[in-house]
């Protein structure tokens, strides 16, 4: 069985697949690749079955050593400094923060609740990878599909991407001006953002109700507004319930772009739905 060794993990290197949807009622976050489009594309490029586990590199790619020749696809954020002399050096991520390293055969770690994804909020799944970790590569022979893979979407985001949102479920907990402000001002991505959520810096969104909201279920893409008034865009490792009102939710087709937002990027929101 092929093995890969982590020589250097970069800033954050995790194993990801399609995550653990359907278990939110147990308090289990969805987890899974934060840019699912890029992850799925990578698996198709190396002929993996859908759902095979890959590596998700964050901002700064890893250095990996394989014990025999293998086929690898890099998708998601561009990595202009890739080197493949004896080992795979991915280098820094550009035009996004997450690059997927899909290896033919998939990463073989023990699944937890049906998924091999690392969940940073709850610790389910394998821990973030460290120097010296050795991972098994699956031996299922990969078949690169004959049919066209479709257009590879450009991964470089525009300078200020626009994410489409559906207002609610608690937009009526805010002043009318708050929703307008959410969709008119550019927001800046805080450096304290991660797979749990993206903190956005900008004007405070004013509440119309000041009652305490009783905890309710949360979806990925929710723009949750804590007491500070600055929204948090929930990503894949978000808690399943929370007591801060959600003013709007990013449309699911735009979540892969949200998963590529980098610290200090600006982002805009537009009502659609």
């Amino acid at each position, binding site marked *: 069985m092929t093995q890969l060794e982590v020589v250097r993990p970069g800033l954050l290197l995790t194993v990801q697949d399609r995550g653990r949807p359907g278990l939110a*009622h147990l*308090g289990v976050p969805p987890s899974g690749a934060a840019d699912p489009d890029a992850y799925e594309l990578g698996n198709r490029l190396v002929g993996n079955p859908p759902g095979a586990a890959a590596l998700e590199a964050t901002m700064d790619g890893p250095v990996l050593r394989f014990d025999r020749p293998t086929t690898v696809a890099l998708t998601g954020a561009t990595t202009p400094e890739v080197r493949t002399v004896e080992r795979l050096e991915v280098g820094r991520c550009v035009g996004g923060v997450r690059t997927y390293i899909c290896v033919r055969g998939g990463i073989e770690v023990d699944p937890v609740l049906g998924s091999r994804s690392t969940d940073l909020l*709850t610790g389910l799944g394998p821990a973030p990878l460290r120097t010296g970790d050795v991972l098994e590569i699956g031996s299922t022979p990969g078949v690169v599909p004959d049919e066209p893979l479709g257009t590879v979407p450009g991964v470089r985001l525009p300078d200020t991407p626009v994410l489409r949102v559906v207002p609610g479920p608690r937009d009526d907990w805010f002043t009318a001006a708050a929703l307008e402000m959410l969709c008119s001002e550019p927001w800046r991505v805080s450096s304290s953002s991660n797979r749990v959520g993206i903190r956005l810096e900008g004007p405070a969104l004013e509440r119309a109700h000041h009652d305490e909201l009783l905890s309710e*279920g949360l*979806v990925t893409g929710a723009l949750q507004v804590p007491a500070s008034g600055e929204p948090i865009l929930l990503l894949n490792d978000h*808690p*399943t319930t929370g007591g801060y009102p*959600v003013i709007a939710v*990013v449309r699911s087709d735009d979540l892969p772009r949200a998963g590529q937002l980098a610290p200090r990027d600006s982002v805009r929101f537009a009502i659609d*739905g």
Partner: protein
Amino acid sequence: MSVTVRRAGDRGSLIELPDNAAAVRVARRLREERPDLVDVVIGHATVLVTWIDEVVDLGVIVERALVPELEIIGRSVDIPVTYDGPDLDEVARLTGLSQEEVVARHTGAVHVAAFLGFQPGFAYLTGGDELLHVPRREVPRTQVPGGTVAIAGPYSGVYPRDSPGGWRLLGSTPTAMFDPAREPPALLAPGDRVRFVAA
């Protein structure tokens, strides 16, 4: 009974219900009748549903589920507790009770699991003695050990694993609240009745 359905993105709805018991009934009915739903998540008095493709009208299922039933949903679960938590003294001071009375009131109530969240297997338990409704700590602890039994506001709960936490810590239990290898992985489900027993 009033029900409001709110949008939660393009693939979800949040159903607002009169109380937690109604939410438990609606969630159970939705699970039975709509196996295609991805998630059905009970909140304090809400049910969040998510789907992948087009969803049909949930209204009929919700209406039917709201007809009150006499049937009691949920099991009875005893959780043994060693009451030696670091906040026992402070809870006694905040409530004007002795430590013994705090323990007696915590073990004397039948709690109901209202919903799960925060961490896998963490159940928000309601129905506790009102004298024990104390505010959460102003500064949360960065690390609360797994198995810690705690209270805050109208809730009791057991931390399933080591995690940050702002609740008041009364004691600890060896009972595993969550085990991914178990079926179901979570010890408690909404509607379950929980009694804490002094070990």
